[in-house]
């Protein structure tokens, strides 16, 4: 904002103030009002929230409502928070590690393996997964309805996009760097993890953020592959609360707020990084 050192012509400056005002107002109405709506209704009493309007709460009951939502049904939401975190952390970690390795090899190796791999990656990016047969396979290998199975699925489904972006980014790393390392006897896994992986930090962060948001908010895949209340992720829990709290909107919105708090915190702390990382030109499709 104030860092902007360019001195603009006064005419442009005048126009840009208006653009600022209109832009900010529009952004506010379109993007912030829905969040405002969630927050004020999460803070109301049940009777107050029944009217579903934008008015400020008569009594600020956010803390009370949150406590109720969190402690409800034997603290069920904590169990699903745990499930969501385990799935997200492990699958994102596994995803960035193995897709980076793959992107590296299929970019550097110009042979049949890599051209087949490229086709497979594009196919996986487009084709929807075959759901029931996947359930059948998971049952056969005893991973159906397990967190490990769910993690494996999230990684498998996230591979194509991650590999593609890693590969494109690796294309910008000069091959001379590998060659120098190879001369020093650094090959295979060492070459990747010692030399290349550290250079991938920006793109790793970008992919990590996209994958975290995608996996944390994934509803469909746990619906199929990780059913059951014990296994429920936060998204599943939220969905089931719609009918549970169908006349108690304050609790429903408190639940939405609870679930949104995690990305919000991440966003507040990493905002600059996220937007900078996303715009760093690493996404080339």
């Amino acid at each position, binding site marked *: 904002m104030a860092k902007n050192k360019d001195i603009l012509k006064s005419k442009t400056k005048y126009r840009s103030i208006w653009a600022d005002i209109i832009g900010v107002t529009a952004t506010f109405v379109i993007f912030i009002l829905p969040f405002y709506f969630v927050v004020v209704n999460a803070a109301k009493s049940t009777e107050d929230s029944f009217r579903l309007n934008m008015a400020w709460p008569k009594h600020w009951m956010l803390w009370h409502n949150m406590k109720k939502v969190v402690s409800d*049904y034997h603290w069920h939401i904590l169990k699903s928070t745990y499930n969501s975190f385990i799935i997200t952390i492990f699958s994102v970690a596994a995803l960035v590690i193995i897709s980076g390795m793959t992107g590296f090899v299929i970019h550097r190796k110009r042979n049949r393996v890599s051209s087949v791999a490229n086709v497979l990656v594009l196919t996986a990016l487009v084709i929807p997964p075959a759901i029931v047969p996947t*359930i059948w396979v998971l*049952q056969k290998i005893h991973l*159906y*309805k397990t967190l490990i199975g769910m993690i494996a699925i999230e990684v498998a489904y996230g591979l194509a996009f991650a590999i593609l972006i890693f590969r494109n980014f690796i294309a910008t790393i000069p091959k001379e760097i590998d060659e120098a390392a190879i001369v020093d006897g650094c090959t295979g896994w060492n070459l990747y993890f010692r030399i290349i992986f550290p250079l991938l930090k920006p793109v790793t962060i970008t992919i990590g953020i996209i994958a975290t948001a995608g996996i944390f908010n994934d509803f469909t895949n746990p*619906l199929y592959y990780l*059913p*059951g*209340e*014990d296994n429920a992720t936060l998204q599943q829990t939220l969905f*089931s609360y719609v*009918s*549970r709290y*169908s*006349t108690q909107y304050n609790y429903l919105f408190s639940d939405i707020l609870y679930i949104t708090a995690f990305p919000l915190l991440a966003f507040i702390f990493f905002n600059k990084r996220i937007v900078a990382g996303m715009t760093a030109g690493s996404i080339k499709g």
Partner: protein
Amino acid sequence: MKIVRNSRFAKVLMLGLPAVLASAMLAPSAHAVTELTFQTWNSQDSRDKWDALTAAYMKANPDVHITVNYVPGGVEGDALVKSELASGTMTDVFAYNVGALMQAIDPVKNLVNLKNEPWMSTVNSGFIPSATGADGGIYAAPFGTAMGGGILYNKRIYAKLGLQVPLTWKAFMANNAIIKKAGIVPVISSWKDSWTAQLFVLGDHFNVAAAMPGFESKFTANKIVLTANPATMAGFAHLEEVRKAGYYNKDVASTTFAKALEKLALGQGAHYPMLSAGIDTIVANFPTKASDIGFFAQPGTNAKSNGATVWMPSGVYIAKTTKVLDAAKAFVAWTVSKDSFVVQNKVVPPSGPYFIKGAPVSGNLTAVFTDLYNYMQGKNTSYPALEFLTPVKGPNLSQICVEIGSGQKNAVQGAQAYQKDLQKQSQQLGLAGW
């Protein structure tokens, strides 16, 4: 007290490790606790009941520990139960629907036959057909109460307008006209929860069965064309007729089950085609209004043959994959014992009769209970719903009913679509004649 999760594991440890170590690691109790797993729906009433029941059972049987797994209701729950049975990961004991939905989980293959259990003789014979598998085995113990499928109505409005409980559909529509004139919504419906839209069709089975004796076997054998009989068309036609008369609440498409009950309880609407158990939600949310609500059977064409379509209670099943069959059987036997009913009555007063002979009934009984009880005690004034008499039941009926009610389809198109839905389901189940 620490609880041992797996008795086998406990035994191995006991035998294999020095006693000191074992006693330090394990529960201080003298012998291992039997672990039993149980699964039921996660709805509030189901939770309240089963939390109380399992707690009471564990108190009476300290050597058993029951872990309860809750699953969603509706189609998500159906899918889950099917996949759990198919993958051998079902809990030892579980609660699920009887009737067509039980047939869809292949009881002969997946469930333990309970026909020779000592308590089976106490089960009301009306329940048996809906829990019987293709091999004649009986697979479920009844849990909960009967429900009537018909019309919940606001008695206060009826008294104010001087209306009589209608015995024919014509009389019902005449009542509706008067109610509308009085500025009250005649028929509440709630299509946001689309399952609630089916009641006009499903609740009409008493009338279908009265008009067409032997209907169920013909229906199961694909010998019925829905559009060819006035009786089978009636339910679909009602949906259309009420729409054309403008009797639904204007926000019907965005109304939920809970909202609809609220409208009924507060007297904003006079009728709600619903299961009698809807009263439980009113008791919970509007306790002072519960006595305003009554129940009557969905009226047909003939005032002389008037009766309620009755839903069976749900069933308690034992999965064949259980490793603690005796403990599972003991628990199921207890759920149909007097002690169990005492606990159930305490949680919520029954909204209909239990299906165990001599089961005690107590608590603040509602008018809905009395209305339903009278239908079930009368001669030829109640009949099971179709889904408890045949394995054929299309999963898309609720959406089709919404389509008719909202005018996307007329009654005939709706019935045709449902016939196709039945055909698809029967073919997928591999039933003969489809």
